């Protein structure tokens, strides 16, 4: 296990991750600097780029994939994502609603 080939293959993973990360965040920054569309569209594009970069980081840097050996980690992450989704969406719903009532 793990000769020269393994080192090169895994190094390529990190290089791909770095290129993806630099490309995606570079695109987001360039778009905001250039500002071609309406704010609402831009927010959607920036959010989409952020989610893509999130996936790229998990895949290339944290090595989370769909292989059997990583299922525990993946399930933990997905469970956390559900908790975060519930808490963030719930908080936003309640606080924004309260904010509106106080205006």
């Amino acid at each position, binding site marked *: 296990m793990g000769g020269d080939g393994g080192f090169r293959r895994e190094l390529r993973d990190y290089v791909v991750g770095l290129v993806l990360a630099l490309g995606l965040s570079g695109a987001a920054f360039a778009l905001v600097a250039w500002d071609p569309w309406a704010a609402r569209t831009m927010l959607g594009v920036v959010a989409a780029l952020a989610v893509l970069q*999130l996936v790229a980081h998990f895949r290339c840097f944290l090595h989370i994939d769909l292989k059997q050996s990583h299922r525990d980690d993946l399930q933990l992450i997905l469970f956390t994502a559900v908790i975060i989704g519930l808490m963030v969406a719930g908080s936003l719903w309640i606080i924004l609603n309260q904010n509106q009532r106080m205006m």
Partner: protein
Amino acid sequence: MSAGSASERRRHPGLNLHESDAHPSDGEVVFGFWVFMMIDAVLFALLFAVYASLGANTAGGPGPHEVFELRPAAMETLLLLLSSFTFGIASLAMKYQRGMALLQGMLALTLLLGLGFLGLEVHDFVGMADKGALPQVSAFLSAFYALVPTHFLHVSLGCVWIVVMMVQLRMSGLDRITRTRLLRLGLFWHFLDIVWVMIFSFVFLRGLL
């Protein structure tokens, strides 16, 4: 250990202190750290929720357009992304035994990039304070100073951890303990990168739209 009694070999949850507990496997140790990181992710998510719900309330103080700047945020992003990459090389140097010099060198480079990131952020915070953007001015700034410096603190602790690991590697070399500690430090460092991606997207870029 008496053979046959399954309850003797019970591994957590619940009180079961026996010598079998003293050495959790590498997998368990790393998975435990994943659990901690996910709890940390929940903390950050809630700070994001607070920021998202209070971000519009500037109370007459400076708003995002006055206090955020694109260029420093881009520089900070570049430094942090590069540091994730150099830490990746350090992990590979450890895994494939490419020598202590490469491992220590990459850790040192990661530390430098991390410190550069921290320096730029301090510069940002000082610049914001000069513009009168202090935490007590508005709900927007309170939420900002709750979220971004929390990440700053995490990166600072990560830098301390890198220094500690560099000293430990020098003193005891690559044994099982330093290996799993480096693995966990790697997870922590890459995780902080992900949090920063969310921060620059939903705080800085969103604020500057």
